[in-house]
């Protein structure tokens, strides 16, 4: 391993300055559950890691109707906060699933997003929650929808000197429900063969879907927002038939490869099944969210 410097800035400006100075030879560091493993595995070398855990904006978890998750907030803080857990069960599905207990004590949803793995469990639930990524850089702050954040396997939109500060999740409307499920051959400690997050908002009649969002993991080069399947849901009755059809449409938006984790054909089938299953859970949650 190439020797690197550990930097622990106290402010966003300091963090941006260090990152700008080193460019690609530095990376922000939260839990380190991806970066350290990749460094040790020789995937890349760094001159500096920039620990964000001393930066207040990156470590705050604020619930005020909407939810702001600092980029370095570990998963356990999200699911152990009972108010957050009650309001965002669709996010908890992912936060309580990533790695195991030890990993969840370190790993952050922000890090999960920046790592930009196609199979990330954390990103699809953020997408269906219409989450906005808050980015700080030398030119100041910019904001973008999370579905635009990842650009390729392991690559994201962050430019020189930029870092992810926080994730802003809008307050759930009345009648909103979301869920995430992944398929793994084992029962723990595994990477998704495919994953689906679904969200829907019920109309006043509580039987019709006003709007819906579906996002797919591990079936494309990045986590995918399934635009057609999402659009399809609007105005449809919240029934198993609708969910099954949404699954069929979502499967046409998936572009999986076959690899050691599963065949492309299997992944297509899983998108259909998991879309149905997550929409059913989202509906249950929507119905109890009055």
């Amino acid at each position, binding site marked *: *391993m*190439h*020797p690197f410097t550990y930097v622990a800035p106290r402010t966003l400006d300091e963090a941006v300055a260090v990152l700008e100075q080193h460019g690609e030879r530095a990376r922000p560091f939260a839990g380190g559950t991806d970066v350290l493993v990749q460094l040790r*595995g020789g995937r890349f070398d760094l001159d500096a890691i920039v620990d964000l855990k001393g930066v207040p904006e990156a470590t705050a978890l604020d619930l005020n109707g909407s939810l702001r998750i600092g980029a370095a907030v570990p998963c356990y803080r999200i699911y152990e906060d009972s108010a957050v857990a009650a309001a965002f069960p669709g996010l908890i599905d992912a936060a309580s699933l990533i790695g195991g207990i030890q990993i969840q004590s370190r790993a952050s949803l922000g890090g999960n997003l920046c790592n930009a793995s196609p199979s990330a469990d954390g990103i699809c639930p953020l997408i269906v929650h219409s989450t906005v990524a808050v980015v700080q850089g030398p030119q100041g702050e910019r904001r973008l929808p999370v579905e635009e954040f990842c650009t390729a396997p392991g690559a994201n939109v962050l430019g020189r000197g930029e870092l992810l500060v926080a994730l802003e999740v809008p307050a759930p409307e009345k009648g909103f429900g979301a869920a995430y499920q992944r*398929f793994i*051959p*084992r*029962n*723990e*400690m*595994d*990477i998704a*063969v495919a994953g689906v997050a679904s969200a829907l908002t019920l109309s006043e009649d509580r039987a019709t879907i006003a709007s819906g969002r579906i996002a797919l993991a591990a079936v494309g080069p990045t986590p995918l927002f399934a635009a057609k399947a999402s659009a399809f849901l609007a105005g449809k009755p919240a029934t198993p038939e609708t969910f099954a059809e949404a699954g069929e449409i979502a499967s046409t938006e998936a572009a999986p490869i076959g*690899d*050691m*984790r*599963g*065949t492309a*054909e*299997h992944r297509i*089938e*899983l998108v259909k*099944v998991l879309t149905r299953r997550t929409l059913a859970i989202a509906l249950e949650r929507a119905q109890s969210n009055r």
Partner: protein
Amino acid sequence: MTTTADRPAQEFKVVGSRPIRHDGVDKVLGRAQYGADLKLPGLIHGAVLRSPYAHAVIKRVDVSRAEAATGVFAAITGDDMPVTAPKMVDMVEEVTNLKWSSQRVMAHGKAVYRGHPVAAVAAVDQNTALEALKLIEVEYEPLQAVISLEDAMKPDAVIIHDDLEGDHLGEKVSPTNVAEHTRTEFGDPEAAFAEAAHVIERTYTIARAHQGYIEPHSSTAFWSPDDKLTVWTTTQAPFGVRSNVATVLKLPLSDVRVVPMEIGGGFGGKIGLYMEPLAAMLSRKSGRPVKMTMDRKSVFDATGPGPGGQVTAKIGVDKDGKIVAATADIRYMAGAYPGSSISAATAGIFACYKVPNVRIDAYDVVINMSKTAAYRAPGTPQATFASESLISELCETIGMDPMEFHLLNAAEEGTRRPDGPVFPRIGNVACMEAIRDSDHFKSDLGESSDGKLRGRGLATGYWNGGGNRSSVTISVNDDGVVSLVEGNPDIGGTRTTIAMQAAEVFGLPAHDVHPTVVDTDSVGYNDLTAGSRTTYASGQAAIEAAKQVVEEIKKRMAMIWETEPENVEFEASVFQNKVAPDQRLTFKEAAGKLGQTGGPVSKTGTVNVRGSGGGSFAAHLVDVEVDQETGKVQILRYTAAQDAGKAVHPSYVEGQFQGGAAQGIGWALNEEYYTSPDGVMQNSSFLDYRMPTALDLPMIDAIVVEVPNTNHPFGVRGIGETSIVPPAPAVGNAIADAIGTRLYQTPMNPSRIMEALANKRNGKNGH
């Protein structure tokens, strides 16, 4: 040899109890010293540069920049290893070509598997060593990698070793990638098939599966200026490492001392040499002790999994379901050098049955992947996946209950095993009956609440077990506690099971025998901890040593009581003068009087246990639930019955049954080397290799069957390996029962189950 077969059951005081293991406290507190825990003054750290290609000519290796780097003490390449001429030698665990044994640990001129060591460095710390590897220049000329049976065996195959002379049914053949073709024949299978009421034949493919021990290999060596070499290593075979290191490095045997470290799992995979000779050569160059520890990726890439391969099996039965003939064609991929346990596969494939007419062909085929190693009942789970899956399908076809089929055809005492030996008293039928009488067998499968499919599978398995050479020394302390010195690294609780057998002779509590595993200079020769032999054979050495101690103490007591030694009896831990019965001393009291009666008592028991370990049979029953929408299989319930002869420590016996079942379930469901066409393993991490975790397994019920082994004074059988034999076919049979179609390939992972279900919908079957 004492026999127990015709005597009433023996009564035991210690054997059969469940004392806390002697090494338990050290392990629980983290004090046990595993390979990588070793610290020595002046210790430096080695690292290995491994070939990125599965097959390549190495045109040039230049380590000069690495050697010159700050903090680097030494670098070696194939040129630094002693030159070894081609010569067949007995390397304890295998008969092999000496040149290959040397080349396997360090490539010389050619890399023949991905991960093949090409150079190594030693530096002040591990990171410096790893960075120095980047300074080594290697010029490769990649060759086409041979990674399938088909490519290796075709007429115009790329040849991996020009100097491999194949033995094909006794004929010498060269060039070839088929190192060996053997045939076992008895009776006239073709004639019997012609008259059979029903004949079934299928071909099965089995994936390579790694032993998956948690502790990676770690070896340390110090080459002293007087040319004496000490090796500290994590191994199942300290004496094997001693002779193999001496052979490869051209040192006199007794100039090598091997210190076995505590071992974090082996399962057969820690028998051969890996880094020991490299650490030795780096130490020789640097004058320092050198430690080398693999990372997980290297363990997967460059150490032996069990072989994968292809098995075609055929069985014919008469109208009553009685087997009239069976044949098999077994083809195993040995990896880059020959030696893939085809003989054990031949012995095991039909061992559970009476087969009057049989022919078994077996092929040992080299391919461009790491040399396979022993893995728990080597070669047998693969072959048994074929035979037990085939029998399940046969039973389905002829409408016969598998339990009935097994009991009708089961091998028993006097049955000729298909490859020749005649079974002594065995527990094959007893295990099947234990399953038949189990609560699990009698209970129904239950219904899944959410439309998932359930199924039940049954399979049997066999492993012969070994005997061979062991040496144990027992010394009596003044306080009546005895120390027991042994040479078998403890991988299954064998310190305790060996100590308990000595304790039984003395009538002492298990904890009054203190067992220690020592280095090769400190105990007589011991064969390796493998082959289910340690409790069985080293236990006999301990019994032998204990008996000698008792005889010696009888002489001492005779001196004190002024009588003849034959007048002194020893029973229930008491020495007594049968002429003057009030003259009696307990073992502990007697121990305090040894100093005055001739000095310390210390005795060595040595054995060379010939022939069979008695054979341990097993029957496994499993319930599964299959999600037909995702292909996921959940193991709902699992029961393993196996013959232990006499369980010395029942908890460890149960643990072996459970551990083997857990590993076999891994083979069945998810474990495989997922390899690119150029021979590079894609899933070389525990994350993607997918061994079962605790959450993937139910509590495995273990039924300990005890049919005494006539070859052991207490009736003990070696039991460590059989438990991995039945699980893959048992799980496969359960899946077939659940989904109504069959898979002919391991692993039966979710993608393959979905494919099988799709084929079934389209009216296709998988064979």
